[in-house]
């Protein structure tokens, strides 16, 4: 039985985000290094393999190790129907009906300035004292 629904575990979700964010296909070790909390190599390896089986990741053999990349159906939105449907949802209240959750919305000038200041502050070197 194929599993339905976006019921990915927490680790799967984190692993998927890291692979998707990478510029090039990544190895298990690279994913492991990015994950906080030092998960075991074998745990990361089996998570990646599971995601590849589910079709969420594509893997290619590179030498003796697998490299993983996001199996994103890139460019599919170019097809006219999807593009029209998307525009329809975007302009006809997709966010009012709650089906569409944007990462960030429009910024006003004041907010842009505030965010720029926040960034400038976070760039300044600070004593590392996180517990």
């Amino acid at each position: 039985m194929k599993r339905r629904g976006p019921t990915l575990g927490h680790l799967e979700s984190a692993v998927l985000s890291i692979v998707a964010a990478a510029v090039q296909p990544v190895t298990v070790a690279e994913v492991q290094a990015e994950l906080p909390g030092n998960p075991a190599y074998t745990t990361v390896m089996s998570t990646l393999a599971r995601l590849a089986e589910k079709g969420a990741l594509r893997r290619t053999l590179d030498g003796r190790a697998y490299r993983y990349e996001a199996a994103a159906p890139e460019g599919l939105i170019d097809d006219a129907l999807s593009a029209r449907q998307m525009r329809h949802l975007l302009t006809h209240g997709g966010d009012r009906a709650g089906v569409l959750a944007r990462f960030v919305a429009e910024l006003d000038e004041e907010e842009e300035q505030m965010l720029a200041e926040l960034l400038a502050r976070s760039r300044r070197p600070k004593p590392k004292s996180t517990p």
Partner: protein
Amino acid sequence: MTIFLTDFVLCLATTGALALLARPLVDRARPSVAVPLLAIGSLVNAASLGLLLSLLALAGLAQLPAVASAGDWSIDVLELDLPVPLLIGVLAGAGVALLLGRAIWRAARIVVVLGQSDRLSRRIRGTGGPIAIVDTGAADAFTLAGIRGCVVISRDLFCALGVPERQMLTAHEMSHLRHRHHLYVQAIDIAIAANPALARVADPIRLGVERWADEDAVAVTGDRTAAAAALARTALIRSALRRAAPTPHQVTTLPVLCVAASHVSLRARALLSTTPARTALGTALTVLLIVTGAGTVDSTLQFHDGFEHAEKHCHHAAPA
């Protein structure tokens, strides 16, 4: 009737408490606790109000001989046990019909749009994974709800971001998908249709689901300051890209986005402050919700007893 009146006042007080405490709760408590509490609480509160108004309508309208004879109730006994003036009954009946109609209409609309969104997310996903990098005109990133749903990121935006920003973005959107955050936003929409006095809970819930996804993303980026910086940088890059290449179907005209606009800086500031923890606010609200729920059940039972007492032919069903 004193029990009923107490419960009715309690129900209205809960509505007030939800409206007033929603924002402080989202600001202080863990969003993964605050959002479900507010959404479920609002639905329960709206249902309570509907039920209490229905009881009032039923008792009031039963004074009409036609209704009384249909239910085989004695008007004299009813007047004594449940003294609800006819006018109050008519008003309550009209009110509950209007509110219920609104809620059903809202729910139907949500189902339709959810269906559209589900079909679209299937098309976008195809056989691939949940994250789709697409060539749309405008720089944007969002999660589409659906049975499986998907995360859509425009190539312009994705290519303009650094790796930490991409991680923050994808982890944030995956959290929306994983926890089905759209359900909370839709639940509060329906609750507001059934009880318009809950309107002030909507914005805190929208902020709350974003905060929830941000907190989940911190687990991937590893550090709150880095997450806040990634969020701020992404917002600024998206803004700059959109200014550089405005598209005809830009969605800036949607009124709802103006409300959401102020959220980015709030979210960044929340990430820079300490990790949210348990608060007494959440506990207090939970207790209030349970008391109101129990009160509504109590009132229902009381009205049931009243009607049973007023039945002319005493054929009480034997307790099972």
